[in-house]
């Protein structure tokens, strides 16, 4: 086997400079190695770029693996960090253009605007995304990592930490928007010597991949956020409950935990103080309901992931019946930045009771599919058209689905509504974890409602009767409608049943399951009627049973 050129050592950052000199690089190419670009052979590009740069005799450039650059639609992506120049759809054997661009970079160059997709964003939880090597602790520290934890441990008490989080107005980013400061205080004040912190990384909403990107791009941030939370609530043990469907995220988390333990940011006596905290990973195994906190706890305990009625809430009686703080990935990812920049800074962003920023995953029939973080209060139009680049093929916008299977569909007439927890609920939808799925006139809204109902019945744990039986019956009724075999009585039955399930189901999955039906009925009732009365599917999606077969 021939000697590999030094430049081709793939997984080290500063592929070239590290070998040749310690000076800051003149030019750097950031290659996105998050899951989406990885599946488009991004890693080959890192290797090839290193080889080509070495062949071209460039000794003052850096080729760095980074996390998600955001614009997944154009992957694989490479960015020249000094100029902001972005290369999309890069093929491994077409990296010459990037090498040329690297040659041209001058020390006086400044980052040029990269267009509205990037310029309209405000990055807090994702501030390091696409900037650091996710497997390099030094890189994280260089960009301010662990400053917050050190300040917390040296200057603050658990009370002042909780106070700052409360004042920042941060709310749970997993869906319901429960005030984070209040949750932390409840856990801190709960009776019990042993307490736990759990990071909920069981991102199950179809069409949502924010948490995955954060974990893949900036895993240390989660560990820092968890350590701060643990300090604030007096916990010493933490778990990250992550989907097994995210192997890259799990691998990077494992690496990050190992590095953080070695550097003294996890384990006994963190940052040379008396504070102890360690983290373990628990893998999910393909059950959507485990995103519900009591089900998640059951799963961490090695049991079937079935929810139980609350109260008692996990904050009082959670893992092994001990007080347990459960926060979502994005919530914990916001914590270090808030403590670094101050609660007032964070509370200054956003609108009304929805403070700060929110990460959204743009998907569906939208040009710029990818990951964005915007201030709360931005309008849907800005997100879909300015940032998202509008609808694929210039087709008409029909609806945007938010909140996953417990959410709803928002029609075009509300495009100018500003997005916040409150406004979405008012429109019959839900923030959820932040998936935004854009639909055009090729989607049938009854079919979409049926799709979500199919999801819910499939993911129902089977514990309580309304969810186990009721979701299937809602599905049967919707199926009848999409086949053009339903009557107006069936529609009335659908609405009645949906209302009862919403009130009687045990957990959020069952209580939220009727939401897609409610919201599509609210805004697209005419489509239901078209299927029932006229027996046609306006979008041409559903297969209507011919009249002669029915007779």
């Amino acid at each position, binding site marked *: 086997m021939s000697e590999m050129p030094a430049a081709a050592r793939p997984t080290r950052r500063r592929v070239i400079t590290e070998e040749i000199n310690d000076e800051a690089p003149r030019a750097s190419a950031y290659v996105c190695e998050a*899951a*989406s670009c*990885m*599946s*488009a052979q991004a890693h080959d590009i890192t290797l090839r770029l290193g080889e080509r740069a070495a062949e071209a005799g460039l000794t003052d450039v850096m080729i760095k693996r980074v996390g998600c650059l955001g614009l*997944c*639609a154009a*992957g694989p992506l490479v960015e020249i960090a000094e100029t902001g120049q972005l290369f999309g759809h890069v093929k491994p054997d077409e990296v010459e253009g990037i090498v040329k661009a690297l040659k041209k970079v001058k020390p006086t160059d400044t980052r040029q605007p990269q267009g509205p997709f990037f310029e309209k964003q405000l990055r807090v939880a994702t501030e390091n995304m696409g900037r650091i090597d996710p497997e390099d602790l030094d890189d994280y520290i260089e960009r301010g990592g662990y400053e917050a934890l050190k300040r917390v441990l040296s200057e603050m008490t658990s009370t002042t930490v909780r106070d700052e989080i409360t004042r920042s107005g941060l709310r749970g980013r997993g869906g319901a928007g429960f005030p984070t400061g209040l949750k932390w205080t409840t856990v801190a004040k709960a009776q019990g010597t042993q307490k736990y912190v759990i990071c909920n990384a069981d*991102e*199950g*909403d*179809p*069409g*949502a*991949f924010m948490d*995955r990107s954060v974990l893949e791009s900036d895993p240390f941030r989660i560990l820092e956020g968890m350590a701060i939370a643990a300090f604030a609530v007096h916990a010493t043990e933490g778990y990250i409950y992550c989907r*097994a*469907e*995210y192997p890259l995220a799990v691998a990077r988390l494992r690496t990050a935990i190992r590095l953080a333990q070695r550097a003294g940011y996890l384990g006994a006596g963190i940052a040379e103080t008396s504070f102890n905290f360690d983290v373990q990973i*628990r*893998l*999910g*195994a*393909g*059950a*959507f309901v485990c995103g519900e906190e009591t089900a998640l706890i059951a*799963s*961490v*305990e*090695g*049991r*079937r*992931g079935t929810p139980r009625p609350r109260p008692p809430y996990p904050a009082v009686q959670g893992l092994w019946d001990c007080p347990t703080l459960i926060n979502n990935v994005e919530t914990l990812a916001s914590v270090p930045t808030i403590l670094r920049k101050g609660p007032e800074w964070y509370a200054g962003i956003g609108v009304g009771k929805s403070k700060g920023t929110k990460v959204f*995953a*743009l*998907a*569906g*029939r939208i040009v710029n*599919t*990818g990951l964005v973080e915007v201030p709360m209060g931005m309008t849907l139009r800005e997100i879909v058209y300015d940032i998202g680049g509008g609808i694929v093929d210039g087709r008409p916008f029909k609806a945007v*689905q938010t909140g*996953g299977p417990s959410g709803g569909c928002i029609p075009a007439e509300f495009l100018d509504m500003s997005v916040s927890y409150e406004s979405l609920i008012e429109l019959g939808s839900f923030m959820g974890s932040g*998936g935004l*799925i854009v*639909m055009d006139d*090729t*989607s049938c809204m009854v079919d*979409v409602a049926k*799709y*979500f109902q199919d*999801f819910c019945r*499939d*993911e129902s*744990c089977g514990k309580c009767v309304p969810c186990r039986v009721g979701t299937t019956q809602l599905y049967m009724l919707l199926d009848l409608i999409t086949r053009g075999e339903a009557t107006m009585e069936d529609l009335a039955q659908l609405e009645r049943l949906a209302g009862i399930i919403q009130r009687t189901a045990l957990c959020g999955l069952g209580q939220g399951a009727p939401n897609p039906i409610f919201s599509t009925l609210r805004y697209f009732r005419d489509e239901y009627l078209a299927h029932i009365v006229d027996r046609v599917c306006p979008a041409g999606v559903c297969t209507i049973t011919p009249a002669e077969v029915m007779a």
Partner: protein
Amino acid sequence: MPIPYTKPPAPSDDKRWKIVQTRMRRGGDRPAALIEALHAAQEAFGYLDSEALNFVGDTLGVPHSRVYGVATFYSFFTLKPQGEHTCVVCTGTACYINGAKDILAGLDRALHVKPKETTANGKLSVLTARCLGACSLAPAVIVDGNVKGKVNVGELVAQLEAM
């Protein structure tokens, strides 16, 4: 005083049991390590047969009926051997509105295999997943661990047939 209890020996001298035993020991050989142990056994053997389930249950002190309850609850665990190759079709929302249904129909038409089934020759298992998080590549599939985005049904079938 609790009755002394000895852990069972590995069912055979297959080296892979060692991996499973190590993972269970790391979890304290307690019932809480059940899901971790099932992950380890499935990684090692490809699927969970009753021998593996019994062994895991007996080591961790979990009743057999509960082990079976947990193994069948989570869709990630499979109790049947899989085909030589696997194709996981994402049925998340983004993939759904971009044609995941057509992919499944295409596979059924060309290769006569439905989700959760294996072709008659044992070559290919087709599975579905509730969102792989690769929504920007919709519709997406995973063929033997490699994500393929923006899938064209014809090309996918050709690729799978060639394997």
